[in-house]
């Protein structure tokens, strides 16, 4: 480590310059996370900006090289912590792909319910925060009660709320409880009304529209070149969605549309996310109906919540661990991380809250990955930020940042 300089040094010619240097972040209330932008502004116009990232870099890829597969799930929680279940499921599916497992339909649909709830939760945060940054606090308070209910559903399924560690390789750790189904029903019954109210507050709100339309635009070509995915890419007019392009977890069974925008500005990103919330809502409805159908055809299916072939990775029920020798042995083997995965090279992508969340896993046949790389959508598209805000207003830069939905955990890995 070189010696740090402690005296203040003025940049060369800083006294003569006509523009202002503004430090936006690292801990600024409007950045919603720890990242820094050093802006060069002329009045209110942004001339250039320089980003600093890595404030909460935790070296997950390195840590993962020493963790048994099931212990990596909690690391994925902490990537995009606004929609942890999607990260968890993506990681489980990566291992399942490596093992060549195919899950029962009911498990796939249960996963779809959880993932779409997570997407709704993620988009609710992003959209309501865009509104907050434009000065409209009310919508935020409306929808947050319903995000709270989504978290309660997670809690019923897996026991935790924000960093969920939900599900296991091969399915879920336990079946959905009755309370979970009741809470899901409550959500399905009450949410549309509130969402409509939220939309009525903002969608055609003159002030909101004036504020967002034309702010922070990016065209389709630049967005693709910058590696944009998810709602931000779709707002620019490219209909790429991993759920459709490479369906996983039986997404091909569902009927839904991919909303796209045209100009890729803040308003388009907001509208795309809003429409995706409705699409996710419809997917959950379809999933519930499909599960009911399966259970009606064969009541024994009610107890299926994981693939039996995944027994090497799925912890046996606690009562068996206390009474049966084999279950006890498996329990210990798993907890001590003595389960070996076959060698292989897998890339698996899921449609996360912010776009294509990819897992590049290289296994050499050991108990831990030889190399694991997360393709974190935020990290890739956040580098376009200086180009997007250049020559715009400072206040547009703020709402652009929140509408891009940059999540510090995902950004820094």
């Amino acid at each position, binding site marked *: *480590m070189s010696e740090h300089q402690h005296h203040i040094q003025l940049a060369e010619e800083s006294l003569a310059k006509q523009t202002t240097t503004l430090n936006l972040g690292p801990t600024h209330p409007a950045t919603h996370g720890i990242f820094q932008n050093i802006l060069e502004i002329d009045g209110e116009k942004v001339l250039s900006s320089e980003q600093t990232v890595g404030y909460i*870099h935790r070296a997950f890829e390195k840590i993962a090289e*020493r963790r048994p597969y099931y212990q990596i799930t909690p690391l994925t929680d902490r990537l995009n912590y606004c929609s942890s279940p999607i990260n968890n499921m993506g990681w489980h599916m990566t291992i399942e792909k490596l093992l060549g497992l195919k899950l029962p339909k009911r498990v796939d649909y249960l996963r779809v319910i959880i993932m779409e709830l997570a997407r709704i939760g993620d988009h609710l945060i992003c959209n309501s925060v865009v509104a907050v940054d434009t000065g409209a606090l009310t919508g935020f308070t409306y929808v947050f009660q319903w995000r709270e209910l989504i978290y309660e559903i997670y809690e019923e399924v897996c026991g935790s709320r924000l960093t969920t560690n939900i599900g296991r390789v091969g399915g879920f750790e336990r079946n959905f409880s009755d309370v979970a189904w009741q809470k899901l029903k409550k959500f399905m019954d009450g949410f549309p009304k509130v969402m409509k109210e939220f939309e009525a507050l903002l969608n055609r709100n003159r002030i909101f529209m004036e504020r967002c339309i034309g702010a922070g635009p990016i065209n389709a070509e630049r967005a693709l*070149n910058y590696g944009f995915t998810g709602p931000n890419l779709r707002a620019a007019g490219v209909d790429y969605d991993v759920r459709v392009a490479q369906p996983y977890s039986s997404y091909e069974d569902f009927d839904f549309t991919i909303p796209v925008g045209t100009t890729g500005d803040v308003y388009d990103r907001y509208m795309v996310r809003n429409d995706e919330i409705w699409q996710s809502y419809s997917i959950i409805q379809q999933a519930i109906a499909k599960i009911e159908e399966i259970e009606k055809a064969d009541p024994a299916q009610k107890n299926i919540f994981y693939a039996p072939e995944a027994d090497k990775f799925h912890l046996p029920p606690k009562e068996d661990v206390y009474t049966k020798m084999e279950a006890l042995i498996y329990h210990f083997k798993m907890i001590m991380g003595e389960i070996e995965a076959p060698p292989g090279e897998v890339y698996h992508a899921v449609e996360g809250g912010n776009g294509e969340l990819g897992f590049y896993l290289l296994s050499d046949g*050991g108990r*831990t990955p030889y*190399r694991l790389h997360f*393709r974190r959508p935020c990290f890739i598209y956040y580098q376009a930020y200086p180009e997007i805000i250049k020559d715009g207003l400072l206040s547009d830069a703020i709402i652009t940042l929140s509408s891009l939905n940059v999540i510090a955990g995902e950004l*820094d890995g």
Partner: protein
Amino acid sequence: MALTNETIQQKLSEKFGEQLTEWQEPYGMLTFRAPSEMNLKVMQHLYDDMGFRFLTDLTAVHYPHSVNEELCVVYHMHNLVDNVRLRFKVFVPISKPDVFTATQLFSAANWMERETFDNFGVNFVGHPDLRRILNVDDMDYFPMRKEYPMEDPTRTDKDDEMFGRGGTVV
């Protein structure tokens, strides 16, 4: 005609002949190896003539035991029109880890290459701003290389043998 793994392999072989090797299809994704100085040519060809306009991912892997090809840079590319992905790799010696930058073709490569430089020390020749990105600026080693174990190597209770990898990591 929609692209499939076979047609891609055929087209690339016609263009580059024997220079592309180790064709594989793990879990359905076409994978091959290119000579390290050819990475840009291959990428440009994929971009211009075969519609691979999206750089999905760029990262590296360290193989400490393969002499003179210790570092492997892995590219994942995506043709969104035909909906095909492919992966290709270049190998470079750790003593001279020079690979051409992809930033001229993909703006997205900028930070991905910085991250790879930061973690593995791959030198992307021609990169406009090759600095560390996630780790502290005055770090003087490349932490994702295998010679840096996660745990303190002097501790005996956390021997690698207990974690499924016989002996200590070299």
